[in-house]
């Protein structure tokens, strides 16, 4: 340390300025470090490019070889026999996401309001880690929980006509997975509302419920919308819960009934790839290419939702 901090010797003797950048050895080290760090940034950029490139290439192959009426006919998704109805998977993803948000939006938001507005600091400190642990549960575990418990004990008890595996059971499982995300983002938004707003509201004689509903909630709305966006994006992208609990394997019929067996965009990818047939093999057939087409659709949808969510989050940061 001492040697590197001595007065630079290479400064001109009669110059009024002292070269503080140090000796050449130190300068070289700074440059080497900087180049190394920049190269790691470049690698992360390359990953994004690689994602888009790998998805786009195969997708274009896929779209140009499959006739349009095979892509959108509301019949079935059965890639192994050449039926690629995207609408089936879109409807599946939509149903799962709607069910998931019906579960996760009120529970997550309710938990967030309680933690931000009602809980004493001690309760908050105790409960918050539990939510964080909940966020760390692997999705395959919730998938198993969905087939072992949610399907038979909740969905089939409530709706006797439901099948053992259903989009609804998958949706509830995904909902449980999304709760911690929604709770933590909305709690951050609620806590970002300045205390002075609450004080002003109480000062005018408003009770707590009125303060929350009429003052705090509107002030935090952009953050809460962001939480919902991120939640929806996460629900659409969730794979294993749906793959296990929705029941359809490799192919699925078009359905608008959440109590039916079904398939989403994500579980379409996962179940098609689990087989040991053409998809896993070296040949790049249409079924193999369809994986990348689905991936591209998924990427575009979640990317858009994340960007919009991000813009909303930035709005709360700027306001206060």
């Amino acid at each position, binding site marked *: 340390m001492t040697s*590197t*901090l001595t007065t630079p010797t290479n400064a001109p003797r009669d110059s009024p300025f002292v070269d503080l*950048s*140090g000796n050449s050895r130190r300068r070289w080290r*700074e440059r080497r470090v*900087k180049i*190394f760090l920049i190269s*790691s940034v470049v*690698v*992360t950029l390359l*990953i994004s490019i*690689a*994602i888009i490139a*790998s*998805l786009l290439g195969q997708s274009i192959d896929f779209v140009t070889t499959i006739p349009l009426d095979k892509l959108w006919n509301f019949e079935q998704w059965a890639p192994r026999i050449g039926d690629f109805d995207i609408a089936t998977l879109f409807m599946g993803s939509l149903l799962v996401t709607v069910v998931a948000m019906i579960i996760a939006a*009120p*529970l997550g938001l*309710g*938990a967030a309001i*309680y933690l931000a507005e*009602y809980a*004493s*600091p001690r309760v908050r400190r105790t409960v918050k*880690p539990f939510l964080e*642990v*909940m966020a*760390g*549960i*692997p*999705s*395959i*575990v919730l*998938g*198993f*929980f969905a087939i*072992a*418990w949610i399907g038979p004990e909740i969905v089939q008890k409530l709706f006797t006509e439901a099948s053992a595996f259903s989009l609804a059971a998958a949706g509830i499982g995904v909902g449980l997975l999304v709760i911690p995300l929604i709770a933590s983002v909305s709690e951050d938004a609620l806590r970002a509302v300045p*205390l002075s707003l609450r*004080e002003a509201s*109480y000062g005018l004689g408003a*009770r*707590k*419920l009125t303060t*929350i509903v009429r003052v705090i909630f509107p002030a935090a709305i952009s953050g809460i919308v962001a939480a919902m966006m991120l939640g929806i994006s996460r629900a*659409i*992208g*969730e*794979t*294993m819960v749906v793959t*296990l609990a929705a029941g359809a394997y490799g192919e699925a019929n078009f359905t608008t009934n959440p109590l039916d067996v079904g398939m989403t965009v994500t579980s379409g990818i*996962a179940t098609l790839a*689990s087989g*040991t047939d053409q998809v896993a093999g070296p040949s790049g057939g249409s079924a193999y290419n369809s*994986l990348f087409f689905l991936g591209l659709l*998924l*990427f575009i949808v*979640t990317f858009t939702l*994340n*960007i919009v969510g*991000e813009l909303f989050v930035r709005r709360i940061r700027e306001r206060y």
Partner: protein
Amino acid sequence: MSTRDVEVSKRITVERSLQGRRFQPANIIFEIGLIISLLASLGFVLLLLATVFSDGISVFEQRGLSFFTSNLSRIPGDAGIAQALFGSVALAVIVTIVAFPLGISTAIYLEEYAPDNRWMQLVRLNIRNLAGVPSVVYGLLGLAIFVKLLGTDMANGSGLTGGRTLISGGLTLSVLVLPIVIITSSEALRAVPYSLREGAYGVGATKWEVTKKLVLPNALPGIITGAVLSLSRAIGETAPLILVGAFYGTFFTTGDTGTLGKFTTTYTALPQVIYQWATEAQSEFNVQLTSAAICVLIALTFVANIGAILLRNRYEKRW
């Protein structure tokens, strides 16, 4: 207690005294509704743990350690998770070697070195978005790049990665957790106050000296917390492994390969085995063995998560 906590406590005291003895049913119903939603969220976790534990406990009782030391098998009584544990640990090692140095150095550049221009804002936005990309898409990336482009297929075993091998799987998971490592490390670096850096610059230290000797040591607890959390995320991921070809079946052998040889042959991992067992028809597989394997996976991820949270709470500095 942070100043924020003090403010909240004050507010709660004032609210209570203002409230007095007045009875406000709407307030109470609302609060009860909120408590129910919180308890329901937490209750599901407890229910899940109870279900899995009560179904899986019999396997641990009957089999004991042999469940951990046996290989996959078609016979439920012989099936164990030795190969899966090896796979998961090996994947975690690869992630540690690849993703952590890369992620942490990217974070250092972005926080300490990068100019604040449009390009860097774009890079940051890009990283935040990468963190939101569904994991199955990373699996597709791994399939296209690591399995197909950099490796040839399983049978030949040539190419850089050798196709469907632990190396491909590990690299895929590394790419998956990289944005998370970058984001958590950036936050940890940002939490180090700027006055510390100014002090060091004042005595003539260079940028790297400031970073290495002051900023990094102070940000280390935060960085490690983020790293541990991303490791537990990597261990629990299933979908990408399906795509990059973690073994799916009830039996496989790698032949007579040594430990290093296992990195370039067929592999499996704990979540993948759970997926396989959960879809088997026999209840020995799809209830008991699955639950037991889930107990092991949950134990691994919980220990990592709780450790990380405790570490953060213990070393979190308030400047």
